[in-house]
C-alpha cells in the first residue's frame, strides 16, 4: 500500500538548541504540547509521548536518529496499536538556522492514507508548531493550551 506524508515548516526566532530541547525535554514540552516526550534519545531506544496530567503513553516508537540540535527521527504509533508493525509512521525534525531565524521542518511520513492517525496528525502539527513558536518567542504557549494548562 502506498503510504503518504506531510511536511510542515515553521520559522522561529530562537536557537536550534532551544528548539531541540523544547522537543526532547519534558519540562518544556509539557508547557506548549500538553504532553511530554520521554526517552534517553539514543538511536534504537524507545520513546513515549505521555499525557502530562495522567502520565499515560499516547504515542510510542523508537528513536531512529538523534543528532542534536540539528535532526531527530523517531517512529510513531498509537500506544494501543504498538504491537502492529504496520501502524508505525515516522517523524523527522530538521532544525536549521536561516537568515537569523531557525527553520523547523517536521516531516511525518509512512502514514496510511485516510487513517485516523493521518487525520489526527494533520490537525495536530499546525497547532503544536504554532504553540511551540509562541512558547519560544514570547515565553507563553498559545492561549487555548494555556487555559488547559491552568486547570
Amino acid at each position, binding site marked *: 500500500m502506498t503510504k503518504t*506524508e506531510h*511536511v510542515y*515548516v*515553521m*520559522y522561529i526566532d530562537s536557537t536550534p538548541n532551544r528548539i531541540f530541547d523544547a522537543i526532547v525535554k519534558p519540562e518544556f514540552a509539557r508547557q506548549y504540547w500538553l504532553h511530554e516526550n520521554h526517552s534517553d534519545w539514543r538511536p534504537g531506544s524507545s520513546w513515549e509521548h505521555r499525557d502530562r496530567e495522567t502520565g499515560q503513553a499516547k504515542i510510542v516508537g523508537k528513536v531512529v536518529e538523534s543528532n542534536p540540535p540539528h535532526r531527530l527521527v523517531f517512529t510513531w504509533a498509537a500506544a494501543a496499536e504498538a504491537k502492529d508493525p504496520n501502524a508505525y509512521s515516522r517523524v523527522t525534525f530538521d532544525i536549521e538556522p536561516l537568515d537569523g531565524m531557525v527553520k523547523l521542518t517536521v516531516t511525518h511520513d509512512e502514514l496510511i492514507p485516510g487513517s485516523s492517525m493521518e487525520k489526527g496528525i*494533520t490537525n495536530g502539527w*499546525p497547532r503544536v508548531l*504554532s504553540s511551540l513558536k*509562541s512558547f519560544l518567542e514570547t515565553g507563553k504557549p498559545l492561549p*487555548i493550551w494555556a487555559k488547559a494548562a491552568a486547570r
Partner: protein
Amino acid sequence: MDAVFKALADPGRRKLLDRLFESPGLTLGQLCEQMDMTRQAVSQHLALLEQANLVSTVWRGREKLHFLNPVPIHEVYDRWVKKFERQSMRALAQLKKRLEGERHD
C-alpha cells in the same frame, strides 16, 4: 503575514492549495496536469506560495515534491478566530448547518 494574505488572494493559488490538500507531495508536472494553466503560471504561483510558507517542498532525487503547509493559516486562526468564544463559533456553525440542510455535511 502580508505574504500569506497576498498568496491567498488568488483563486488559482487557492486551487493549487486544494490540490495539495487532496494529494500531498505532487511534483510540478503532476500539478500542471490537474490545472488549467500554463506550466510557467503554475510554477510562478508555487514560488509565491512557497515564499509565503504555505507550500513546503522536499527534494527527492531530481524531483521536487510540494506539500500544503497550513501552519501560517493556523497562525491567522490563532490571532483572529480563536480569541473569540469557541462556544459561539460552534453555535453559529451548527446554525449554518441546520439552515443549509444535512446534504451539505
